């Protein structure tokens, strides 16, 4: 095996660090997905497209001469209202229905967003240059862009803020109560409709933050949404709903896996390997569960 990864240990370190920083971002998106999945029992295929939309907001600030890092604050605010609008128009009609209906409806939203972004922003691959420079480690063998470190830091900050908010605030308590038992929460006076809207809005806002960070560190493109959805879905099913440390860990694991797949198989198979990993994880999970079922018999 004459892969570069095995010959030069520095590349291994590089891939690991890149993967870790990338994975923290994935974990942030996955946290949003876990939130709405847990509370509303909806799998949002448009998750990735919300991320990309958030990224375009930061990119536009960059185009108009504002530093794109401010997108981290502006984009979630805009995305919150976008999320509420989507909820009011579509999601509240599919919340109580079959899961497949919600998957298909959000698939429709995803196609819609993809194409609207393609019209509005063009089909070019763009990136907002933050001008943060790079950090060199290990005798200049490992190169880390400061923007990646910045984005990981901001992701952790937002995640911590959200956890505290969910624990302490009134709305956070209402959201957690609805997730546990929507009917009981309703009886006890929680306006579940409002809670659902807020949950979807918070999810969209998280996507906005992640998108802004992605536009700084990586590139964005109107059609790049679906892989982010699949990644976050994968992270959530590996970690399980409501397992926050698990989400962080599996996010970082996925990031490292992707970097290594990139080095070993080549960039053209990167997305393919992510999707294939999803299939493998689901199949593994299926066999594990079926063994449990047989055991119960």
């Amino acid at each position, binding site marked *: 095996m004459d892969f570069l990864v095995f010959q030069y240990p520095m590349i291994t370190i590089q891939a690991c660090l890149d993967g870790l920083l990338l994975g923290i971002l994935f974990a942030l998106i996955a946290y949003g997905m876990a939130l709405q999945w847990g509370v509303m029992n909806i799998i949002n295929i448009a998750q990735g497209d919300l991320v990309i939309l958030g990224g375009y907001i930061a990119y536009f600030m960059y185009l108009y001469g504002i530093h794109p890092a401010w997108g981290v604050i502006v984009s979630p605010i805009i995305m919150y209202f976008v999320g509420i609008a989507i909820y009011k128009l*579509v999601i509240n009609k599919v919340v109580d229905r079959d899961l497949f209906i919600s998957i298909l409806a959000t698939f429709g939203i995803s196609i*819609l967003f993809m194409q609207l972004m393609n019209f509005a922003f063009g089909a070019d691959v763009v990136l907002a240059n933050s001008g943060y420079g790079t950090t060199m480690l290990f005798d200049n063998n490992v190169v880390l862009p400061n923007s990646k470190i910045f984005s990981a830091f901001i992701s952790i900050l937002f995640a911590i803020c959200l956890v505290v908010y969910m624990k302490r605030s009134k709305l956070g308590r209402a959201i957690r109560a609805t997730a546990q038992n929507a009917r009981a929460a309703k009886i006890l006076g929680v306006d579940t409709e409002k809670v659902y809207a807020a949950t979807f809005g918070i999810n969209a806002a998280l996507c906005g933050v992640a998108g802004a960070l992605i536009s700084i560190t990586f590139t964005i493109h109107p059609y790049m949404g679906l892989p982010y959805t699949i990644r976050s879905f994968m992270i959530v*099913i590996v970690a399980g709903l409501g397992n926050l440390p698990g989400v962080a860990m599996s996010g970082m694991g996925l990031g490292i896996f992707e970097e290594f797949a990139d080095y070993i198989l080549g960039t053209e198979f990167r997305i393919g390997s992510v999707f*294939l990993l999803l299939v493998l994880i689901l199949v593994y999970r299926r066999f594990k569960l079926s063994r449990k079922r047989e055991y119960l018999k």
Partner: protein
Amino acid sequence: MSKNSWILYIGILVFGLVAPFIFPAFKVQLSILCVLIVLATTWNIQGGEMGYNTFGNILFYGLGMYLCASVQVGMFFPLAEWTESGGEKTFVHTPSQFFQGMAVGLVVAAVVPTIVAGLIGYAILGLRGHYFAICTLGLGVAAGEISGGIEIIGAGQGFTTPPFPNIGGLEARGEFFYFLSFGALVLTFIAVRAIYTTRFRLILNAIRDNEDKAEAMGIETMKYKITGWMISAFFCGLAGGIMGGLVGYIDSTDVAFDGREMGVFMVLMAILGGKGTLWGPIIGATLFHFFKEGFWTFFLGWQYVALGVLIVVIVIYFPEGLMGWLREKYPERFGEVVDEADRKAQVELK
């Protein structure tokens, strides 16, 4: 089968046979319609009858497309050189080579996906509900991404299928592909209709309604699920092979494993017509094709926006589909088609 339904079937058959001569300008559209109906009808075996909402039938469609074209080229010429030369044809198929290649290619395109479905079926079909939906979605996209990286089938630059031999020009080409796809449609319809009159359909419905209970009743659900998927894969592969020849150019993510278009279309068509019925997907596909061509013609550039809105509207307001809606609204007044399906369903339920 009553006398009326015989008249209906023969009427449709005759219409199908003369259609390319009545509407010569729409031959390609009609062939695409046939392929769409095949896809919707076979999706319905999973999504409608079995309750397994798959996005992954596109895998078999794309596989069939690549296999048919590869066999057609590879039988006579080196495949790698063909794809390398891209658009400029260094090799030319003689008519007999073309038709031989097509015949063998279609058989391979139908059989190999069936085997693939049988092999992966045990692993994939054990998943339930949304896990199954997302897993098959991933399967389709992964196949597209991976085939886009394989050199011998053209990788990112695409694969040009053998051009139709120079006999009779465009007219003959259109007629050939029309009758091929119409043949596939008739074959699919006969097969699916035959399946739906047997116990097999009842078992699939039992799986849809309550899989654990069906298992407890002593039905080996996995066996039937895999068989159902293999039947779908057979016809999807066949449809893919025909579509590859019809389009004339295969791209991994835009034509073959096109989860964003064909993969969603087949779901949408079946839901639009009414899933879980024999005629629903057929009516749905026909309507959808008109919608789609309208969008593509009048809203050029905005067609995906219109498509996205259409998906959302159909899913929210017509989850039961046209057949379900009509059946609810006019249980008696609706024409023969629904009555026939309805009565049959009731007889089978007893």
